[in-house]
């Protein structure tokens, strides 16, 4: 029955089915009669190294040309939105940060902005907190774009790029760890403030990083931009123009690579982005190459913003003044992770009964949020990240929905892939930068 040592085949009612494991394409093509079997349906994923996590693509091929592409998602659905309804508003941060695991800070900020808007306290967020939020969102954008560069490099055959990209990202994760105690899934941005202030050691690391990365960026460009394989794999591949982007709801670097400078940091600013000087990079090629250029330029713009944020970082409170919302204790980073500071524990356990009651009520029960609904959007590394939060007046969210850019952007795969070559599906899919944790939530 089996005609080769690699691809096992069996007859089904839908036709002959091959189970491939890689490196066995020749054995399939040799066992198919090209005249009677022009069409092949390839099931790519959900476990495939180049689909960025558990994305499954059902591709119909004629020769090497894709005639139909159908993305199948949901393999990483964890019910985060449902879970949020059973936790209080502050605990929600712990969940939303796990959605898009390459952009934890952006997820957290979007959620907190929504809660703060529901509470009506957006203006009361302290300047230091806003500055730190901006700084960390931009560091997160750099980290996310570096992972994009790393994985795309790997998928298009530039393996060394993967090693470099992940190496530089680790630098940023170190900064996050220094500040929040965790590399990823930080739970650092909280409604009304931040879990704790940025330590001086992290500031020093950020300053070092600002000097370190530009040199490395030049190296990457020297390695990739002039490379003939890189150019041919990206230029003119997976083209999607502005009309296509808007119809399919595509935002972020993909939309900007088509020439529309739509960036929520400029067009609908939040967290004080209007006070920073930066450009919105665009390209006009609308292909994978353009997306590469846009992302590289965005890393440089983010570095500019981080530098400005460092300069305007003045000492001050990080929590909102309203004691009914602000977290009752200053958290401190101990040897075993983030926890209540020892001074605070001494106070509530030994000195002040009222402080203990206040702490207990706020931590177990949480604060109440007036009924209503809001939609808040931030510019996520992948596009518009929107949070639709509904409150019924209780201490738990009534409904929180994430408009995830990965989810929406993945709809573009058929538009990019159909009519193109199989190899370009990889390049096109990678250029969307989907993160399945965010897509499936």
């Amino acid at each position, binding site marked *: 029955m089996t005609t080769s040592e690699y691809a096992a085949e069996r007859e089904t009612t839908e036709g002959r089915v091959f189970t491939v494991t890689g490196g066995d394409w020749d054995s399939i093509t040799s066992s198919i009669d090209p005249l009677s079997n022009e069409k092949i349906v390839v099931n790519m994923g959900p476990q495939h190294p180049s689909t960025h996590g558990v994305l499954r693509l059902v591709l119909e091929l004629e020769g090497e040309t894709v005639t139909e592409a159908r993305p199948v998602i*949901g393999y990483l659905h964890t019910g985060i939105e449902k879970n949020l309804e059973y936790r209080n508003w502050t605990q929600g941060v712990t969940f939303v940060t796990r959605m898009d695991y390459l952009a934890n800070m952006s997820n957290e900020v979007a959620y907190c902005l929504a809660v703060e808007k529901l509470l009506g306290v957006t203006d009361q967020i302290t300047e230091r907190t806003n500055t730190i939020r901006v700084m960390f969102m931009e560091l997160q954008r750099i980290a996310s774009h570096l992972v994009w560069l790393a994985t795309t490099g790997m998928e298009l055959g530039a393996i060394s790029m993967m090693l470099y990209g992940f190496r530089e990202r680790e630098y940023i994760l170190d900064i996050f760890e220094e500040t929040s105690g965790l590399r990823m899934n930080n739970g650092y941005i909280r409604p009304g403030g931040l879990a704790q202030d940025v330590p001086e050691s992290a500031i020093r690391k950020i300053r070092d990083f600002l000097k370190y990365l530009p040199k490395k960026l030049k190296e990457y460009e020297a390695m990739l931009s002039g490379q003939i394989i890189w150019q041919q794999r990206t230029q003119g591949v997976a083209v999607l123009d502005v009309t296509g982007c808007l*119809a399919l709801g595509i935002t972020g670097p993909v939309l900007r690579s088509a020439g529309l400078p739509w960036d929520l940091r400029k067009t609908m600013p939040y967290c004080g982005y209007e006070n920073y000087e930066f450009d919105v990079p665009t390209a006009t090629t609308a292909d994978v190459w353009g997306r590469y250029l846009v992302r590289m330029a965005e890393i440089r713009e983010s570095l500019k913003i981080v530098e400005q944020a460092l300069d305007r970082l003045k000492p001050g409170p990080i929590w909102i003044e309203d004691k009914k919302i602000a977290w009752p204790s200053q958290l401190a980073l101990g040897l075993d992770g983030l926890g209540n500071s020892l001074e605070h524990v001494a106070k509530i356990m030994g000195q002040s009964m009222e402080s203990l009651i206040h702490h207990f009520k706020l931590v177990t029960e949480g604060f109440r949020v007036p009924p209503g*609904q809001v939609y808040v959007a931030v510019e996520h590394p992948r596009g518009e990240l929107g949070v639709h939060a509904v409150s019924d007046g209780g201490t738990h969210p009534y409904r929180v929905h994430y408009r995830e850019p990965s989810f929406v952007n993945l709809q573009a795969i058929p538009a990019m892939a159909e009519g193109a070559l199989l190899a370009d599906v990889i390049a096109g899919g990678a250029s969307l930068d989907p993160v399945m944790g965010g897509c499936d939530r």
Partner: protein
Amino acid sequence: MSIEPGTQGSVPAGAELGAPAQTPPSPDKGMFGVKGTGDVSGFGRLVRPRPAVFDSPRPYGGYFDDVYDALEEAYPALSEAIEKVVVDRAELTLHVRAEHIAEVCQVMRDDASLRFELCSSVDGVDYLSSDERRFHVAYQLTSMTYRRRVRLEVAVAEGVTVPSVTRVYPTADWQEREVYDMFGVVFAGHPNLTRILMPDDWEGHPQRKDYPLGGVPVEYKGAEIPPPDQRRVYQ
């Protein structure tokens, strides 16, 4: 005669609130299953006001008046289509009758003084027991030309279909599928309304308020922690 649970018989009053326990079927009713008085705790005299949504008076402020006037001019049947206009927290929500939503979206997208080119998000909310038409679908529209946002909202009872907006906004394709998957709202005219996040053979619609979260009790340092939907809630 059958015995209603919770009223008499072996089941103590309030023991069966229906899952999930944390979200009482009515916001008037507290944890202990008390009916009618609007008493939250069952013991105190606290009255929990029902979160009502009121029509906002003109002028709405900001660009909201411009949007409404432009929409009225471009879509003469607007008074029939619109149920309520709500301005809250500097956001405009137009409550649209379900049968008109696709037409309103078409006008919102195409009219030169509206130009809502991008449908940012479509999602559902289940207002179980607080609204006769329990399922609300919210459409967040963005005008890139004018840098404006407007939310359209439709409300339907169970089993009532909503016209699909995929012909106007192809991006709503997956998002409507998600609303169908999570809430069971059927979008008429959708090209391929199948489940998207849950497996194809899944039973039930997980984001509905009467769908339990599930989970098992966990023992932690000798104490048993109930699953999240059976823990105490402070409503």
